[in-house]
């Protein structure tokens, strides 16, 4: 099972792959996805990169309810 730190690291890598100009600050489980500084299209691209790396698919309806990094961690654990 992946730790929260690992998932945050993975998320940051995915953001860099999508757009290396985005500056990311300190992130915790409470960090809201909407506060990361990505627009909605970029957020979905980041999700797409993570899906490829983890070889899973985040169901659409689960994505609609994701709020923060903690939710993302819970979802990834549920799927893998």
């Amino acid at each position, binding site marked *: 099972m992946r730790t929260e730190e690992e998932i945050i690291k993975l998320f940051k890598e995915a953001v860099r792959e999508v757009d290396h100009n985005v500056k990311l600050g300190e992130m915790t489980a409470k960090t809201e996805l909407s506060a990361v500084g990505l*627009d909605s*299209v970029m*957020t*979905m691209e980041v999700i797409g990169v993570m*899906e490829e790396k983890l*070889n899973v698919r985040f169901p659409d*309806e689960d*994505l*609609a309810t*994701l709020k923060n990094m903690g939710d993302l961690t819970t979802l990834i654990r549920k799927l893998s």
Partner: protein
Amino acid sequence: MAKDSTLIELIQGVAEHSSRGYTFLNNDGKTTALTEHYWSFPELRKEAERRARYFRSLGLEKGDRLAMIVPEGEDFVLNFFGAVMAGVVPVPMYPPLALGKLDSYIDSAARVLTSSGAKMLLTTKQVSPIVWSLMGRVAGLKDLLLTEKVRDHDSSKVTTNLDDIHITSADPCFLQFTSGSTSDPKGVIVTHGNLCANAKAIMIDGLKSNGEVDKGVSWLPLYHDMGLIGFVIAPLFNGVPVVFLPTLAFVKRPGIWMETVSKYGGTITFAPNFAFGLATKRVTETVKKSLKLSQLRVLGCGAEPINAKTMRTFVETFAPCGFNPNALMPCYGMAEATLAIAFDDLSRPMTSVRIDRETYESEKVAKLAGETGEAIELVSVGQSFAGHEVAIQGPGGELLKNGEVGEIVFRGPSVTAGYFQNEEATRALLEGGWLHTGDLGFQLDGELYISGRKKDLIILNGRNYYPQAIEWEVEQIEGIRKGNAVAFAILGENTEELVVVAETKVQDKATLAEVVKRHLQTTLGLSAKEVVLVGSGALPKTSSGKLQRQKTKHQYESGELGRLGNRTLGSTSTKVALFRHITMSAFARIRHTIRGSLPERARRLASAVRSPRQVTR
């Protein structure tokens, strides 16, 4: 009965082409792999009729509105066709996709449901927990129906038949709502006649398509006109097969678009400008080597302003894959015109003109730019179709001549009957027998160019937003002066970009600006390029106190925003300095963006200087 005058007849007629049909690539499994579901045209017709009988058995009558929040393409198309065959009027709505913005989603969905007077809401098992709360909120909405139930119903128990349904070309086929958030949504009535006329214009006049050789590929959302009419409805006209990808699969992995075109031998595909940027951005050399795009005959670009540079980058990037530059086809259209208004000529590459900015701004005339002076590059969207007409109107409704800039108007059988149950907006839209597009442009030698927008609409990544909805959200934030926020768009590289200007008395403007940005992210899922906070009384307003978005935008772009409110400009020398500042900034302004002329701006500045509202803090 005239053949091909209703969508019902198109669905019945296409069933003659038994060797062709629609292929849906679905996300069924636990991985990102897509599975293929093929429906031949006769199977599609049969299934649509089966579902139509079921809808009738539930008590849905001719003309009843059936709202649809159905994210998957296959499910959407079968139910949409089923409703149409039953004489029911579907109301496609966009599904909840944004992350953690469910409250604002539910609010805007409730407004669309109310405005459409929907009797039932059709959705999936997975989406239903999210939209269930709508049931109590919308008067007249009687039931929530699951697509699984429609799919799995026992047809042997359904005795209703479809013989008593009499639909003519003047009957509404479905209601098209704009996709972005808006406080006052308007449903465009798309009649059967509109659809047949526009389908013919697209498939025959525009694309010169042939069902035996062509193949469409689309990831476009089906709740949007370009995806629904362009790829679900129009291809029925001559039986062009289509491969549908889930929209999210493209947004998550933009490379899948050209990969699918290559794999399935796609000859026709369309997307808004921003998608061209995405497709180009992350494609690797290895992927490019595996792509075969020489058969791609039409790559249409529409639904938002077209940036010539983005198009050129795309052409260069995919040239090694055999991509033919002639395939690139800028086009223009809108829901009120069913979909298509004008397409570029397919027998040539993208064509653009460089027009002189000064003449454009001061005289409202498009004159080709010379070697010197600043130029604006605009892409030709070609001409309209047989039986349709495009013209340019001046402020008094007079038709303008070659090269003169005014509002683009359109007429012909594709023009909507109006907005659903909204006579006032319909009158304004169709005044004088022309559809008023709200877009500014001109014609040069019979070709249409789009150069700006009369309305304050903001288009971000292909979705329309009314500034009022964004401004209202900004005003909810503590520290922002109520009624003193303005939102507008400037043209960025791949899509328009959002700028918000608001008044505050708070000292720490930087922190508050961050709060505003974050709030817009959380509530509307929008990322503002810039939030500018100014002191009280700095925003330009009319004498009656109304906000002036265009004027605020001009001030933002020329760098004069907020500078006027905080000082008294008495002496001539200060005014001269300011005029110089404005003149200089004319050279540093954002590319492609068209603004008022310099003398006009000077007049505005002078009046701003005199206004007492501007100099009191």
